[in-house]
């Protein structure tokens, strides 16, 4: 208990507490904290063991209470590696062994030779019974060629599906940062501020008293924007530097990172679908952010540990910025299978949806605001005008939003596209359906409509809104039928 508390707080924090309390001189505290961290690290390290016991990988750890974890090799779903800057100095890697069941990596080997990760992965692939149904495109069993470093004559390394260069990543960062859009606006404002007369009074009363000169505030805005843009480019470059997606037999391997190198592989079957998001800038550049949700992996390469990817059981995802349509089509062929000979019918959604969105996003807030204003004693005419303008604005945008919704359910793939400004396309393999849900709100029931939600094992589900009830029910029946009759694996 006490030890766990100390470890959780960390020596550094305890030291900081001591300093704050001013009981202990700061130099002594720092020295003690560093020594204690080193000693504790040494003790923890010396009490950690791992070995292969027949077909099981076993680890034993713990200083006072010992903990032993046994993982059968055939249950290993993936072996990921992480290499921080410190690891790279000593040419070591951190290995994470993941099984399907748990939300966390089952076993983490904090620092081992890169060779160990390779060997573990080879053993796991060789022992794996779960790829028996898959046929390898090369006609060789997955275990034989899945590893480039495998025994026997080394085959040529497979061609990467995707590789991101620095200019591509920079473009992605620039198109993702909303402040980039503000740069031209800032320029215009700057020109206006310096030439226009109408801002003079306002400038004098507020800005000059604060900053002395309008030129300074314009410069400050521009510098702020620049800093924001540069940091976002730098962050993206550090995270996605040298991003490579390679196919090895029946799995995809994903590598990225400038300071900390991360490598993650997942069998193709575990990738549940594809989600593409495109903001207007990305649309103009014909690129988009692509996410591949992976079932059963908590923290995939690219997701932050403890971030949304670490949510319990919901699976992680591969994050691929600046993906062109050609790249995306190639990835879709791998994940979702070849494109069907006959394109599936694409549907819009019911016109009734507009009324509902208009009601809840336009009329209700406008009326509510007007009522509040009346109670608060605000002048009625401006309030009424504002409410009217608001409703008209919402009416115009919801109409466009509703028109942007499209869905299709083919033999293999269910797909929805939506969004006026930012557009999102979700694609999911129909056979990877986990559950199908029909939902009706008050509005739905009054108009005989229903929403259909198709959920997969990863962080992707397809929602088809505002279908006529009978159509929704038969779509549900079809999806359930496909999920139950398709013999192919879904995870």
């Amino acid at each position: 208990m006490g030890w766990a508390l100390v470890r959780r707080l960390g020596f550094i924090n305890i030291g900081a507490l001591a300093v704050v309390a001013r009981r202990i001189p700061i130099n002594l505290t720092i020295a003690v904290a560093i020594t204690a961290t080193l000693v504790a690290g040494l003790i923890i390290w010396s009490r950690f063991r791992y070995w292969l016991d027949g077909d099981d990988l076993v680890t034993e750890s713990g200083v006072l209470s010992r903990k032993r974890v046994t993982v059968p090799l055939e249950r290993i779903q993936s072996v990921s590696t992480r290499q921080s800057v410190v690891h790279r100095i000593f040419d070591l890697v951190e290995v994470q062994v993941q099984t399907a069941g748990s939300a966390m990596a089952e076993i983490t080997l904090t620092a081992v030779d890169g060779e160990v990760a390779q060997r573990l992965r080879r053993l796991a692939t060789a022992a794996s019974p779960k790829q028996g149904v898959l046929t390898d495109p090369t006609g060789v069993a997955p275990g034989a060629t899945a590893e480039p470093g495998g025994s026997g004559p080394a085959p040529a390394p497979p061609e990467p599906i995707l590789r991101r260069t620095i200019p591509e990543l920079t473009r992605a960062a620039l198109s993702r940062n909303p402040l980039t859009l503000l740069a031209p606006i800032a320029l215009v404002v700057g020109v206006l501020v310096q030439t226009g007369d109408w801002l003079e009074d306002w400038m004098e009363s507020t800005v000059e008293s604060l900053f002395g000169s309008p030129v300074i505030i314009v410069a400050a805005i521009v510098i702020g924007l620049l800093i924001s843009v540069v940091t976002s480019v730098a962050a993206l470059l550090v995270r996605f530097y040298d991003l490579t997606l390679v196919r090895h037999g029946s799995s995809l391997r994903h590598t990225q990172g400038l300071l900390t190198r991360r490598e993650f592989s997942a069998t193709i079957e575990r990738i549940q679908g594809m989600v593409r998001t495109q903001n207007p800038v990305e649309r103009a550049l014909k690129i988009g952010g692509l996410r591949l949700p992976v079932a059963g992996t908590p923290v995939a390469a690219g997701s932050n540990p403890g971030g949304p990817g670490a949510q319990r059981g919901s699976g992680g995802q591969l994050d691929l910025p600046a993906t062109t349509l050609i790249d995306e089509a190639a990835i879709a062929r791998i994940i979702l299978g070849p494109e069907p000979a006959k394109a599936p019918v694409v549907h819009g959604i019911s016109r009734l949806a507009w009324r509902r969105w208009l009601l809840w996003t336009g009329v209700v807030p406008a009326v509510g605001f007007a009522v509040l204003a009346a109670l608060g004693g605000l002048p009625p005419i401006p309030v009424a005008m504002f409410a009217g303008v608001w409703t008209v604005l919402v009416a115009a945008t919801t109409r466009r939003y509703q028109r942007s919704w499209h869905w299709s359910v083919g033999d293999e793939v269910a797909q929805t596209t939506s969004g006026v400004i930012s557009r999102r396309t979700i694609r999911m393999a129909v056979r990877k359906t986990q559950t199908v849900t029909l939902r009706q709100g008050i509005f739905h029931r009054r108009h005989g409509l229903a929403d259909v939600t198709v959920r997969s094992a990863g962080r992707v589900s397809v929602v088809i809104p505002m279908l006529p009830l009978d159509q929704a029910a038969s779509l549900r029946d079809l999806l359930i039928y496909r999920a139950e009759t398709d013999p192919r694996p879904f995870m």
Partner: protein
Amino acid sequence: MSALEPVGFRNAPVVLGDLPAVDQGPFERVDSKYLLQQRAMWLVFGTVAAIIASFAATVVPEVPRWFGAIAGGAALLVVIGAWVLEGQAFAYRGVLLRDHDVSFRRGLIGRRTVTVPFSRVQHVAVERGPLDRIFGLATVAVFTAGAGGADARIDGLAPYQADRLRATLVQRTETARAG
């Protein structure tokens, strides 16, 4: 041939009208004690609201006397409305077991039907909270891969029903996985 196509995979045409429809049911109702439990909860809520309103109206000088009457009346209306709605919701609430999947539908105002194929079930849990124990009820929670929580939480079952449902689900999941 794609790598994703397993050996012997066929893709026969599907006639939409011939598919077994979940809506044809028959959905089985949950235990009638569930309706009792829900109505009792509303009664408790209404009583507490009425007591608070009358207390406020009589003790706190700033609250006018008529407020107690209005609030009490509103609470009574809500309870009566909920009483009727709960009856309808109970008639709608139900479980449907078919050869290959389980469906659960429910809804007081909005409605929801969730369908889970047996082959997708990861585990099944039977839960009995304190309220469930007072009224002699049990909840069966069905979990699949990748969900944050239970996909279907079938509440309002009698304990023997819950046990039977759990056993059926587990057994059919095993068969579906093996086959």
